[in-house]
């Protein structure tokens, strides 16, 4: 029995050794990639493209709509897009911001992008893998996401365990670690990448009528966040991001939501920029689907946003 237990122990040591080396290679490799899921986190943890004057926070419509390159060129300040795909406001959007400011100075301006799902209370493990490469770097990140991303004890403490089932990540990470270019270099620049897909009506077909979700706890969280920013002398601006008009027509609570957004802006005493009625929303050539602008649309709305921000006194020329 003793001999068997020693063999089992040796086997486990070997397995742990392999897993540790594998974890090191995969995580380190992924931290070098520009794959969309990791691009912003990598900038944050690698202290790359930081020290910005303005940051944008939001979900997929944020990172797809606003180009820091254009905002930089018009506002003459440094901007960064912290948009995080598929995540409503709570808890991941403030988490992204808070992680960002742990590594750099606080920005002077914070733009909060509001889309259909922003005020929804939703926790699911969607794209939980985006946090994996930083588990051994940042314990506080793990504790923040543990519940909403269903992070188990083994995920946290057992090397490589969390990557099981993510074959693409393992291959991408190892390739990147070995100096080979990433399989999907997404060309993300300061958190943004223009979407080159063609207009697709398919998403409209599945949505006959939509009630925009909103939860009071999420509204409170947003108001609390804005209050904190203002207490640190940061200027906050809310944006109702462009949504294709046909989809807007299917909102059952459009007026109610407009009133809610107005009341949030009033309560927080911040500017609310409304792009729901912007001419761009009536032209499908600017969209790739009903909720996301394409590259041309993103460039157009980024110019518009920059000009609107200039009018509010945001930017180098004041």
């Amino acid at each position, binding site marked *: *029995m003793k*001999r*068997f237990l020693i*063999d*089992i122990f*040796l*086997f486990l040591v*070997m*397995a742990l050794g*392999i*897993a540790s080396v*594998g974890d090191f290679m995969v995580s380190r490799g992924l931290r070098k990639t520009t794959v969309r899921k990791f691009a912003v986190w990598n900038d944050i943890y690698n202290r790359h493209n930081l020290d910005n004057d303005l940051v944008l926070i939001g979900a997929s419509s944020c990172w797809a709509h606003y180009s820091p390159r254009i905002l930089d060129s018009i506002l003459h300040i440094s901007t960064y897009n912290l948009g995080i795909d598929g995540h409503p406001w709570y808890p991941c959007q403030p988490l992204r911001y808070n992680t960002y400011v742990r590594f750099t100075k606080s920005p002077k301006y914070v733009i909060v992008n509001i889309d259909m799902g922003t005020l929804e209370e939703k926790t699911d493990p969607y794209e939980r893998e985006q946090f994996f490469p930083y588990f051994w770097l940042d314990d506080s990140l793990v504790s923040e996401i543990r519940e909403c991303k269903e992070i188990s004890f083994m995920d946290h403490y057992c090397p*490589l365990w969390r*990557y*099981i*089932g*993510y*074959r693409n990540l*393992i*291959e991408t990470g190892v390739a990147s670690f070995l100096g080979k270019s990433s*399989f999907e270099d997404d060309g993300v620049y300061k958190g943004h990448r223009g979407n080159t897909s063609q207009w697709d009506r398919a998403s409209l077909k599945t949505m006959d009528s939509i009630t925009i979700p909103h939860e009071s706890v999420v509204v409170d969280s947003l108001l609390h966040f804005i209050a904190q920013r203002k207490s640190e002398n940061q200027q906050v601006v809310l944006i109702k991001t462009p949504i294709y008009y046909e989809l807007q027509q299917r909102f059952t609570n459009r007026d109610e939501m407009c009133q809610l957004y107005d009341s949030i802006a009033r309560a927080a005493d911040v500017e609310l920029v409304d792009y729901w009625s912007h001419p761009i929303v009536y032209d499908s050539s600017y969209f790739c689907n009903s909720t996301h602008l394409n590259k041309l649309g993103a460039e157009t709305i980024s110019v518009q946003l920059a000009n609107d921000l200039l009018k509010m006194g945001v930017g180098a020329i004041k």
Partner: protein
Amino acid sequence: MLISSYFFYGYADWRMLPLLIVATLIFYYLGKGIVKAKTEKQAYWLTFLGVALGVGALLYFKYFNFFIESFASLFALCGLQANLHTFNVIMPLGISFFTFRLLSYVIDIYRGKSEPTDDVVTFATYIAFFPCILSGPIDRPVFIKQLKATRSFDYNTAVDGCRQILWGLFKKVVVADNCATYVDQVWTSFDSQSGSTLVLAAIFYLFQIYADFSGYSDMAIGVGKLLGLKIADNFKFPLFSLNIADYWRRWHITLTQWLTDYVFMPLNIRFRNLGNAGMILSIVITFVLIGLWHGANWTFAVFGVYHGLLYIPLILSGAFFKKAKMKTNRLGLPVLMDFGKMMLTMFLVTIGLIVFRAESIGQALTYICGICDISLFSVPWLINRIYYIPQMLFISIMMITEWVQRKEEFALDLKAVRYKWLRYCIYAALLVMIIWVGGQAETYIYFQF
């Protein structure tokens, strides 16, 4: 062990745990009753009752709706509107496996092949033994003796068990689950796929089902070894079979042997006056039952008939009665003739598996017709080319290892490897592959049966 077995079963589906316990108690007392019966006739009727209960439970839980729907279709063909209702019957997990164990218990007692046990806990453990209850192997009552016997720890057996678990895990996680990704995608749109794609998916399904089921069996046997128990072998490298009879001697051995003992042999004796025709009839009936054992669908019946008919040339030529033995050349590879036989057998098995995998006979025919198309000579569709290069490598590793080790009990039997460091390198390589491509979390195919 009984508590852990019931916990394991209840964890998978607690709703049917009472049924398992009740069935166990009924058969336990039936076994005692058969021995204590005062007359032969009384023993016969008690055995008959056991068989009727076991088969009845199978028919009800597994085949009730199938029969109702089939009768309704038959009436409809005759222009009659049958007002038959189906029920939403929940099929207990592993029912096909534990029912066969229960049946063999009472039949063997009646035949005088085994003694009833006085220990209800041991009997219940035999029926619900956790490594085997969901997907076999189907151990015979002789296994009860092992459960009752005093066991002592044996280093070599325990290490062997660990190796067999590792090899089973490799087959399931690395080979089967990854083949499943491709097979499932092709089957969801098979009517629009090229002939070559359909062929590739059919071949992948052969490897998937083999790696899935034999992988599970390896793990079950490995766990048994860790507990000091010898669970019956279920696979003996069936992909190297030289003919269909050889294949069925190596594939799902415990089921084939069970049906041979309790169905084929009695039928063969009954039909012995008919000569070869009687044997063919017995085999076809046995194979229809093997097919239907897998589930309530006409595809499984056709699968059984197909395999039964494949025996005809073997019986008529006399090859059925000879044990097929592989001849190899100096390099250890099969001689050309045997290689051809192996390929032919695998071809026939693959065709049968298309029927097995299909949801209806029409679907199977469409699939097979799709293969017989000019697009058979086109390049098959691949989800991602880079993805499939390692996949081919994994299948090759499995096949080469199994070929080299085909005379051993299982493929990762490394007793002959003298150097410990080399054994550990092999374990490490398998671990790396399991971590690399594992985690698809496909359920075991045979859980549904």
